[in-house]
């Protein structure tokens, strides 16, 4: 090409569409956050800046207990799902083809393929029967359900990390008479750590995010933050919902920034 400034990778119009897409992605979020600071009682009319609705949400007992419940479920579910997903990833990667390989892979990824509403209905029926049999109504059902659908999210980054890992270091460790456990503990695990961390964070956020399955599985008085908000939206919406959303949004951004900085440092 004669034109020195010609860039083959530039396609006319693409940059415009991209920038517009980013504006459309962020404009609604900024609007949502802005109205959380509204002094008025409606989400329609702007009446000046105030922290009133944050205070209201903070003092609301229902919000407080829903937040604690969300965090408890997300912490437990992400810890358990990451642990079992790590084992499964070790069991399914870096080995010769084996019998049942496809079955295991499909079952692990099953929650990604089945529509959430179908799983939600299935769990509502199944846990409903168990609730009747055992009389147990506690948080165990929600934790179990969350753990299950978090497994593929924890599994995928761990598996990706494992597949990219060099076998030679582990072979070297074995050559130097390290036991299987020593090799795992001092070679494999440290190398795998970023994948495990990524998987755990993904699982945590996925659990915190869930509405549909929680809505169907929860017993009375077991609202998580998202199901509480969904319930509020059915009534007249006040900026309190904006304030709660802004809080959750802030938590997501902080977690995500920390995650980016962490992974960048480790290369």
């Amino acid at each position, binding site marked *: 090409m004669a034109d020195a400034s010609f860039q083959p990778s530039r396609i006319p119009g693409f940059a415009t569409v991209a920038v517009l897409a980013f504006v459309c992605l*962020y404009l609604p979020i900024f609007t949502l956050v802005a109205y959380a600071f509204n002094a008025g009682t409606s989400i329609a009319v702007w009446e000046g800046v105030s922290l009133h609705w944050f205070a209201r949400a903070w003092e609301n007992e229902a919000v407080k207990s829903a937040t604690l419940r969300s965090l408890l479920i997300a912490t437990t579910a992400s810890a358990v799902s990451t642990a079992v997903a790590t084992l499964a990833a070790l069991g*399914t990667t870096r080995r010769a083809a084996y019998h049942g390989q496809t079955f295991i892979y499909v079952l692990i990824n099953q929650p990604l393929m089945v*529509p959430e509403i179908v799983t939600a209905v299935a769990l509502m029926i199944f846990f409903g029967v168990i609730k009747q049999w055992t009389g147990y109504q506690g948080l165990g059902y929600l934790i179990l359900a969350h753990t299950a659908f978090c497994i593929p999210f924890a599994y995928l980054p761990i598996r990706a990390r494992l597949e990219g890992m060099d076998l030679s270091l582990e072979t070297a460790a074995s050559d130097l008479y390290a036991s299987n456990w020593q090799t795992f503990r001092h070679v494999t695990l440290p190398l795998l750590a970023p994948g495990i961390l990524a998987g755990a964070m993904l699982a945590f956020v996925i659990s915190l995010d869930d509405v549909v399955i929680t809505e169907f599985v929860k017993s009375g008085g077991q609202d998580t933050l998202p199901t509480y908000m969904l319930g509020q939206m059915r009534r007249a919406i006040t900026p309190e919902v904006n304030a709660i959303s802004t809080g959750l949004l802030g938590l997501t951004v902080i977690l995500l920034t920390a995650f980016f900085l962490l992974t960048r440092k480790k290369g």
Partner: protein
Amino acid sequence: MSLEDDARARNVRSAWALSAPALLILLLAAAGPLLIVAVYSFLSPGKYGNVEWVFSLDGWRGILFTKDIFDDTLKLADAHLTIFWRSVKLSLLTTGITFLVGFPTAWFIATRPPRARAFWLFLITIPFWTNLLIRTFAINEVIRNEGLFNTVMIKLGLFDTPLRIINTDAAVLMGMTYVYLPLMVLPLFAAIDRFDMRLLEAGYDLYASRWQVLRRVILPIVKPGIIAGSILVFVPSLGAYVTPRVLGGGKNMMIGNFIELQFGQGRNWPLGAALSMTLLIVVMAALLIYVRAANKGGNGHG
């Protein structure tokens, strides 16, 4: 020989043993309960919800037909067909629009210099990680009657009265496009990122036009990304529950909301179960077609 067999057996055993805890949890709280739904779809509805253990095909029949109250004749259930058609139409449109917007966006991100690329990628990941309900609520802030869009339009004198978008199919479509766009952009970006830009120069050197390069060089190579993105958008769109509930109001139901209705006010669990199985089968069929297509594409280039 027997040593090799022994090693192979050990390999299989350890693969299953290490996967066992995960598989157990999944069987108990994800895959297993689906069988119960299948069973329930062949039972009779109980008077106050739940089921009676009497075999019946009414659940499956009820997907397409209704019984006339007076003479028990079967009629095509128009209301159900409307809901199915809306679900399929909106899901396809969502997939199409997110691709049309997402492809240029992913291309733009992938062609930035490395430092700027990390920044743009970060910007697309934040909405991806943000609670779906919050994002649905955020788009609601823009399109509702007293929302940002209508306020600005009225202030500018372009509209006299607010344009009613909320509680229409258009609102659901806008909401799903907004919510699922990052799911399209991320796999597209991953595919474009691996794309060797020298191929473009080669294309242009051989006198291809921009359109030809896009159509014949770029699209075939990033096809796996397109397929992945389309699955990731189409599948949750078809089973969407939250977005149509918040933005569509009670009338613009999609399959997800229709299923819930059967377990709530509808008190027809077998119909709800049959609808769930239908949705599951449709989604699995879509996934299978996609996987076939992806494999064929891979072989063609390999």
